[in-house]
């Protein structure tokens, strides 16, 4: 049962989930906020592709526009919605993220349509390749390669640049980081921009799977990102990556082991496993990490 096809499919699913999870955990690390509007940043990427196709942009420009749109919306929501309540309470921040989520869903609902829109992606997304007898969607290989590059870049940014140092420091001790002269708004904006970037890249592949986008497209990826980060450990991007791949692996194992009559209960099995896992290891797979100081 464990053949090349299974391995590649698991890696590609894991890659997509890892991207999703890292984008969520970067903001969580600094603001201690689970940003429930995160899924909407993916949805925005989907609508950006839809609109680019209408104006006839070339495919490479479409992809850039999609990622840029996610980053912009992520950046703007921080400034307009999260920043004013940042120093208030944790609850205010959390409720704000729900408000942003609902707001963005309704913007596209009113401005575009409540119904799904087709998202045309470049032809090579739907091509298949044959490797070692296994027929694989090229898309799956692309996401593995893209994720490897993106995570390598992110790792370089976090480890080798002063911005990365400041972000890791801020995730650990926010006030002390400010005492070093690092502006609070600067690291938070950076976190939202990077989070938006990851959501944009993941969003391209997410809508690429179904080929369509609708106002509620963001709900499922948000849930996956949230579960993956909780499983992997909320305290570090590494935990999020591990959580993403573990989630992808679990999902694929269930897909091939469950009998056909049970396959529609796959998510129920999935969540049951996650709940059981968290009962025994509530801190997630990767334990180490940040303290709990919150921005104030």
């Amino acid at each position: 049962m464990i053949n090349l096809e299974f391995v590649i499919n698991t890696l590609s699913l894991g890659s997509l989930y890892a991207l999703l999870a890292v984008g969520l955990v970067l903001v969580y690390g600094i603001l201690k906020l689970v940003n429930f509007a995160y899924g909407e940043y993916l949805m925005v990427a989907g609508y950006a592709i839809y609109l680019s196709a209408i104006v006839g942009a070339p495919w490479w420009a479409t992809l850039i526009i999609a990622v840029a749109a996610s980053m912009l919306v992520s950046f703007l929501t921080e400034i307009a919605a999260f920043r004013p309540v940042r120093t208030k309470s944790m609850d205010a921040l959390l409720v704000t993220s729900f408000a942003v989520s609902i707001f963005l869903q309704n913007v596209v609902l009113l401005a575009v349509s409540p119904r799904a829109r087709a998202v045309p992606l470049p032809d090579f997304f739907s091509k298949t390749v044959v490797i070692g007898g296994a027929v694989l969607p090229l898309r799956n290989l692309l996401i593995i390669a893209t994720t490897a590059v993106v995570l390598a870049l992110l790792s370089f940014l976090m480890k080798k640049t002063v911005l990365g140092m400041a972000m890791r420091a801020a995730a650990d001790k926010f006030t002390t980081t400010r005492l070093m002269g690092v502006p609070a708004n600067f690291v938070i904006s950076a976190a939202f921009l990077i989070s938006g970037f990851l959501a944009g890249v993941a969003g391209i592949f997410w809508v690429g799977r179904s080929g369509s986008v609708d106002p509620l497209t963001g709900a499922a990826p948000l849930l996956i990102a949230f579960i993956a980060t909780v499983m992997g450990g909320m305290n570090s991007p590494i935990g999020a990556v591990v959580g993403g791949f573990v989630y992808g692996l679990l999902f694929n194992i269930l897909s091939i082991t469950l009998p056909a009559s049970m396959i529609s209960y796959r998510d129920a099995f999935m969540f049951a496993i996650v709940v059981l896992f968290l009962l025994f290891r509530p801190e997630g797979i990767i334990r180490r990490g940040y303290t709990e100081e919150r921005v104030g």
Partner: protein
Amino acid sequence: MTTPMLKVDDIHASYGAVRALHGISLEVNEGEVVALLGINGAGKSTTLKSITGVLRPTSGSVTFLGEDITSRSPEKIVKRGISLVPEGREIFGALTVEENLRLGAFASYHRDRYKADLKEMFELFPILEERFHQPGGLLSGGEQQMLAIARALMAHPKLLMLDEPSLGLSPAITDDVFALITSLRERGLTILLVEQNAERALEVVDKAYLLANGLVEVSGTADDIKKKVDIASVYLGGEDAEGGEVQL
């Protein structure tokens, strides 16, 4: 008369509904080493937090080098030249010693002097050169205190504030910390020191303020304070300490 480098004028501050400072005034002149003394809860750390902008005073003002810095953000205040060595050291545990020092230099980074600054820190604290690539969290308490001080010095502060630098350290390391304060003082650095160990602090400072219940109870030169206040009774308990009243 010269104007003081730091002038704290009648600041009040609270944590939510709990009022912590009831009108603290103090002055630090350039080149002076000044101590804030007092028992836990007297308002020493709160005063430092108000100066660094971490806590916004509800009234009163903080003036530094002639400029009103009341309620400025911490990141702006450190750029003006006030660095804090926080209580409990607050080392970035997952970051290496090198990265901790690099962030320390964030407020006033200059490429040409950075290497020389590091070298100076290695001379002051040879242990940091040994541990340069290790995570700060793996250092001992004493080493972390050295790193916290070095991190603050990397910003080239005009005023260095130390919050309980000897807390939780062995007597030998405490000696090192006080020796260091003396040597920084000889270099002409202006220092504001918060310390529970009043007797040790009074050996190294020019001037001290004794705080109790959010107010300045007594102030004066180190010798004055030694004469006026029975330090042991303030710190070792008894009714005087409880009531915030001191023997004069």
